[in-house]
């Protein structure tokens, strides 16, 4: 069986083929929701942003040009949405009192930082430490690490997504991984939490 490429599917979506859009949805729903979960942590918001990303893909189908990979285009849309959401939440945090919730606990990104029950169940202490360390990275480094490590996106594509040079991506990733190596040293050296 011949598997259609993303590009073929997108070209058919452009011609109004709903089935091809469904196939793209099936292929990228999980990677995209996971990407947003890691970028913004809040699961409900992550799902909402992933839906919005697909909606934008559909709305912009006539503007799609097959000169770039579909995933570069998709993740560029997703990254812009995620970074805007992070900036919005930071703005709200400032208004709401420097990121502290009602109980006075320090939240990292969002006003209500509590993970869902499901996330609390799947998140181990190691997982929480890794999440908090990655979340503490500057926005661009965080996006680059998540795209590189968890979305399996090539550094050349990351350059296209973040609109920076390939050498800038290499440098961005190196600095990010250096920070992670230093802060996660107990885990890297084989210690248990």
């Amino acid at each position: 069986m011949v598997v259609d490429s993303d590009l073929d599917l997108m070209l058919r979506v452009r011609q109004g083929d709903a089935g091809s859009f469904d196939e793209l949805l099936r292929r990228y729903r999980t990677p995209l929701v996971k990407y947003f979960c890691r970028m913004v942590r809040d699961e409900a918001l992550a799902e909402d942003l992933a839906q919005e990303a697909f909606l934008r893909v559909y709305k912009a189908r006539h503007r799609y040009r097959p000169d770039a990979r579909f995933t570069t285009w998709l993740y560029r849309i997703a990254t812009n949405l995620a970074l805007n959401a992070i900036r919005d939440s930071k703005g709200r945090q400032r208004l709401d009192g420097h990121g502290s919730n009602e109980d006075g606990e320090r939240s990292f990104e969002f006003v209500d930082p509590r993970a869902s029950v499901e996330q609390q169940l799947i998140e181990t202490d190691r997982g929480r430490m890794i999440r908090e360390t990655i979340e503490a990275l500057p926005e661009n480094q965080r996006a680059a690490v998540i795209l590189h490590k968890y979305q399996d996106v090539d550094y050349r594509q990351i350059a296209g997504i973040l609109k920076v040079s390939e050498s800038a991506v290499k440098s961005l990733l190196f600095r990010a991984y250096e920070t992670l190596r230093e802060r996660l040293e107990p885990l890297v050296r084989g210690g248990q939490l």
Partner: protein
Amino acid sequence: MKCNNREKLFLFVHNMLDAGEADGVRRHMAGCEECARAAEEYRRLDSVLDDWNTAEPSPWFDARVRARVAASEKKNSGFFGFGRVRALAAGVAAVVLILVAVVVFNHQGVVENQQPAASQQQPTANTASAQNSPTTRVLRQPLPPEEQLKMDENLSLLEDYEVVANFDALSELPQANANYP
């Protein structure tokens, strides 16, 4: 390769070096325990990061995306859909712009027609008063050549005027000089 070049080691571990550079790093690491250990740290960090799991999409994710797409399509396709409203608004704006341009153009034409008439009326009014006071005209505006000729013929009048006009200054002159030794 320079020893302990961490960036190069990191790029080597993550396959971001070209083949030649990667060979150089590999050869160096074969004889450098410290660099080999640093590269191993990056590999271990990579596997540590695997422990960050996230939730899967909800079962109704696709249905929600389709609903949003359908809502967006409906919005665009109805008679008062966003696309049609936008096109209609653009048309109305174009018509308004044309009307404004026509009104402004006509208004400018009226103003230009009125201005010469007004400028013709103004000198006649001035002429009437100026005829009563020719000296004022000498001071305030240049005379037409034929009137200048008349003034030249009536030179005594002009001389009288200049004496009168400078009278105050002349009368003060001795007092001003008196202030100086």
